């Protein structure tokens, strides 16, 4: 026993030590400890964010320098707070609270004290900076816009927040990140990769040279410049036309699915969200709950599409073989559902497909719609077929556009109505509003433009996208270069397109023809309602227009949706007509038409629901 005492103690000590070391070095060890190693400081070298050009190579977004005042709390030495505050242009209370926030975030990591000084402020501050130990100036680059349009498409960048910091280890406090639009979608392409230098520090936080001789250091990778599909001139022109109007416009090049213009009204100047005024301006835009400038109506505004939808019902009926172009229906200035007469503006009489489309006859399409359902033994089967055809046009679901926002719209299915009316308690006549694009259907202007592009292509479309090329290689995601075929055969498109062309020749849009360009289009006048003090109130109809041109070899397909613009041919039709001319001819020949659109606003319509007075709708003010 006494001989073994010391030996056993040595063995026990050995095991205890190895046990403790296993705990420390095997269990508690984690390989990414280098991130929090106090002995290593990282210094970043920021690349310039990639420029954004339009489809014609015109610069839309560039960069400008800005200067952030940074602080490392534990290095701060006593300072003349008053002088420093006046140099920074902040008050003492703000200074103290920002310092406290920085200290709480981390005493040894840099935090932003004052973001984005202007060049002038920077110049005066720079000379005195050496008096303020623990503070330094970090140069950053901010966005610079050569256009005042396309704010919602381009998106904006802003400082990373705590959520970003926790969820993406790439970002460090004070860095900028794309928040919406293209800036968000192509964040990783545009931002490039910052370079990192690792510096070995001692415990007094002094630099004692590069860590591992710079083996882990990386050089910054420049942000990639990207070309987008927007046409800057068309975009700017469209936004001018939208002055004083609410709604969304999307124009697409049918043969490629490239989005030529994406306009939401009202909008804002993208330069507002850059620099020190950013947060003030942002709050203003964010809290404007009436005109909602940050809400992108071109992609997120889902509403009943109205009459343009008739073209699809015509195509489905042809595909199903339940009508031919000469099949006729009579219009009694409306049509009967049971014993109720539902109205029609077309003037009445016998309608075939051609005149049904160009006069936008509700009765004709109610007849067509019933035929589609009557072909099948049960309404459920008819509904399934109809839904399948509709969805093949990119309706009722997200399109997969390369923009981070958007809405799916809605194509109702049998489950939807089973839930609404009860199983077996509805039929084609119950949902007859869908025949004319009202009822339970909803689509965004983007979806309407895409649907029009599919008609223009006679049966297929490319997923609409805004990316044209990235960097020098120029390649984009292959999903944007693959055609999506609709369920309608090519031959059925001609009669419908003929009807759409006649909309301009003899129909609802004959006043807004463009000399030398043959256009196919379709008007829409959509009833709409709002709630005022809990009561459902009807507002002036929404003005909708879809069109493509030229009819042969289409170069542009577009959808214009103007809230409370009354007849489709009015605001929406005019704007569509002007945009087509601008895009195809490059100039406007019909100056009177242009002048009218630039001057007329719908502010009086938008004020009505807020006036607190009873108001009239659909007045003939023009």
């Amino acid at each position, binding site marked *: 026993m*006494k001989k073994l005492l*010391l030996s056993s103690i040595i063995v026990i000590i050995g095991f205890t030590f190895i046990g403790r*070391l296993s705990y420390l070095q095997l269990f508690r*060890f984690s390989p990414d400890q280098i991130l929090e190693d106090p002995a290593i400081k990282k210094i970043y070298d920021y690349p310039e964010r990639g420029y954004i050009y339009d489809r014609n190579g015109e610069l839309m977004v560039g960069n400008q320098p800005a200067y952030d005042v940074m602080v490392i709390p534990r290095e701060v030495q006593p300072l003349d707070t008053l002088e420093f505050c006046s140099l920074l242009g902040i008050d003492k209370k703000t200074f103290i609270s920002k310092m406290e926030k920085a200290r709480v975030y981390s005493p040894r990591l840099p935090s932003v004290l004052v973001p984005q000084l202007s060049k002038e402020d920077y110049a005066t501050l720079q000379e005195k900076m050496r008096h303020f130990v623990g503070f330094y100036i970090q140069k950053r680059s901010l966005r610079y816009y050569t256009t005042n349009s396309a704010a919602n498409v381009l998106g904006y960048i802003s400082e990373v927040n705590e959520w970003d910091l926790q969820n993406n280890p790439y970002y460090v406090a004070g860095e900028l990140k794309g928040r919406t639009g293209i800036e968000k979608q192509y964040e990783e392409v545009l931002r490039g990769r910052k370079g990192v230098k690792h510096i070995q520090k001692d*415990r007094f936080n002094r630099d004692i040279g590069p860590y591992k001789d710079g083996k882990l250091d990386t050089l910054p990778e420049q942000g990639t410049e990207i070309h987008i599909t927007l046409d800057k001139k068309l975009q700017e022109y469209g936004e001018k036309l939208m002055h004083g109007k609410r709604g969304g416009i999307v124009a697409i090049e049918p043969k490629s699915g490239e989005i030529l213009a994406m306009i939401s009204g009202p909008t804002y100047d993208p330069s507002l969200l850059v620099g020190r005024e950013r947060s003030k301006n942002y709050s203003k835009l964010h809290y404007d709950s009436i005109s909602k400038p940050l809400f992108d109506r071109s992609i997120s505004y889902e509403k009943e599409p109205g009459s343009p939808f008739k073209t699809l019902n015509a195509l489905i009926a042809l595909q199903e073989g339940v009508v031919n172009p000469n099949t006729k229906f009579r219009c009694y200035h409306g049509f009967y559902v049971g014993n109720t007469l539902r109205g029609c503006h077309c003037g009445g009489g016998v309608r075939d497909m051609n005149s049904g489309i160009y006069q936008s006859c509700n009765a004709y399409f109610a007849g067509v719609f019933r035929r589609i359902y009557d072909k099948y033994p049960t309404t459920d089967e008819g509904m399934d077929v109809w839904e399948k055809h509709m969805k093949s046009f990119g309706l009722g679901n997200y399109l997969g556009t390369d923009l981070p926002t958007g809405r799916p719209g809605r194509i109702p299915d049998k489950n939807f109505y089973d839930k609404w009316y009860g199983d077996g308690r509805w039929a084609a006549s119950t949902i007859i509003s869908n025949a004319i694009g009202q009822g339970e259907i909803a689509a965004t202007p983007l979806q309407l433009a895409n649907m029009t592009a599919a008609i223009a292509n006679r049966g297929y479309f490319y997923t609409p996208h805004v990316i044209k090329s990235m960097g020098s290689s120029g390649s984009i995601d292959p999903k944007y270069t693959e055609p999506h075929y609709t369920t309608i055969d090519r031959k059925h498109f001609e009669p419908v397109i003929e009807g759409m062309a006649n909309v301009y020749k003899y129909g609802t849009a004959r006043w807004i023809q463009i000399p030398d360009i043959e256009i196919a289009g379709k008007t829409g006048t959509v009833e709409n309602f709002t709630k005022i003090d809990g009561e459902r109130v009807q507002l002036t109809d929404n003005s909708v227009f879809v069109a493509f041109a030229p009819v042969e070899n289409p170069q542009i397909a577009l959808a214009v949706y103007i809230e409370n613009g009354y007849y489709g041919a009015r605001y929406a039709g005019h704007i569509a007509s002007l945009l087509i001319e601008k895009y195809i001819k490059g100039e406007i020949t019909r100056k009177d038409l242009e002048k009218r659109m630039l001057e007329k606003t719908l502010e009086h319509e938008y004020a009505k629901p807020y006036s607190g007075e009873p108001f009239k709708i659909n007045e003939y003010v023009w």
Partner: protein
Amino acid sequence: MSGRGLFGRIDWITIFLYALLVFIGWINIYSTSLVDPNLSIFDFSTLYGKQLFFIGLAALGIILVLFVESNFFERFASIFYIISILLLLGLFVFGKTIAGATSWYNLGFFNLQPSELAKVATALALAKFLSDIQTDIRTGRHQMYALAIVLVPALLILPQPDPGSALIYFSFFFVLFREGFPLYYLGILIFMVILFATTLMFGTVWVAIGLIILTILVYTFKKASLKIPVLPVIGVIVLSILFSLSVDFVYENVFEQRHRDRIALWLSLEKDENKLEEIRKTIGYNTYQSEKAIESGGFFGKGFLEGTRTKGDFVPEQHTDYIFSSVGEEWGFLGTVTVILLFSVFFLRLIHIAERQKSDFSRMYGYGVISILVFHYFINIGMVIGLLPTIGVPLPFFSYGGSGLIFFTMLLFIFLKLDSNRLKDGI
């Protein structure tokens, strides 16, 4: 055998292990104190250069020791002891103060720490006293003498103040136990430490309840044949509770605040997580940094000269008391386990050597050497890896420092010299 001369008879395994430990120690001192890689390793302005010089001195010491007659050490043990006691006393008048402790004589080129010398002298004196034919360790009087030999230098070192070195003298108890000093003394000591710690952690009431429950359990589950008298057990319990009651008083009045902080940290007495973290980063700063450095080494370590915390000088006193943290950071789990195993094998080899001595003096001296080395090793590494409270003692053969290295070397080689002579002892 006797014909083979000194080099044939000396234990080369031990020498090899010793050399390996010194070498690994120096490598790590090099790493912790390297500033400019262009300087020569013999540059005496650097710590590693100085340590190399001390290793040279130690080698000279080895040669000196090996060429002295074996029985010189036994014969002059008492004289050495008296000289070292005088040197310790002299510190009160002539001592040089470094880092708050008056523990050194300034010899110009070299600071001599007599407490290191005293360890060698005490080991020799204790061995000599115990091996004396007239000494009987079973008698109380001789037990008192033995204790006095150990405790006098300890009590002289304590007020320097150098509680770490004083504590080392407790290691001589292992010699006493080996030579028949009753083992239950050790039991009582351990029991008191446990009582002390548990009282601080849970309070006297719970300790008393625990003791009573333990006693009941023992009585319930013991073999029926085993008779344990009741009265003495009750006596022990009462004494324990009295001791437990005195703990708070001792803790609050005898210990200083820094001791209390270290103990509080060690036993996690502070219940508030944030406050505990705060203590860990202030009072426990050294240990905190040392643990972090070891932890960051992982399994393979960061590599020689690649330890970021070692380079950044984050662990204070890393080249002396905290040298093991450098092993942990740069050589990882592989390195630390290797060093632990190396020390363990080294100690077991020394025990093996001690047990084969025919001369009682040699064996007892050997046990003294081993006990001192093991005690240093246990307290030092235990502290560096956060198992024990902070007590400043060096890691033998590893830590930077001339006195330490030279006296540990002398201590060891005197034993090896005695061992090389063991076959003559019988004659």
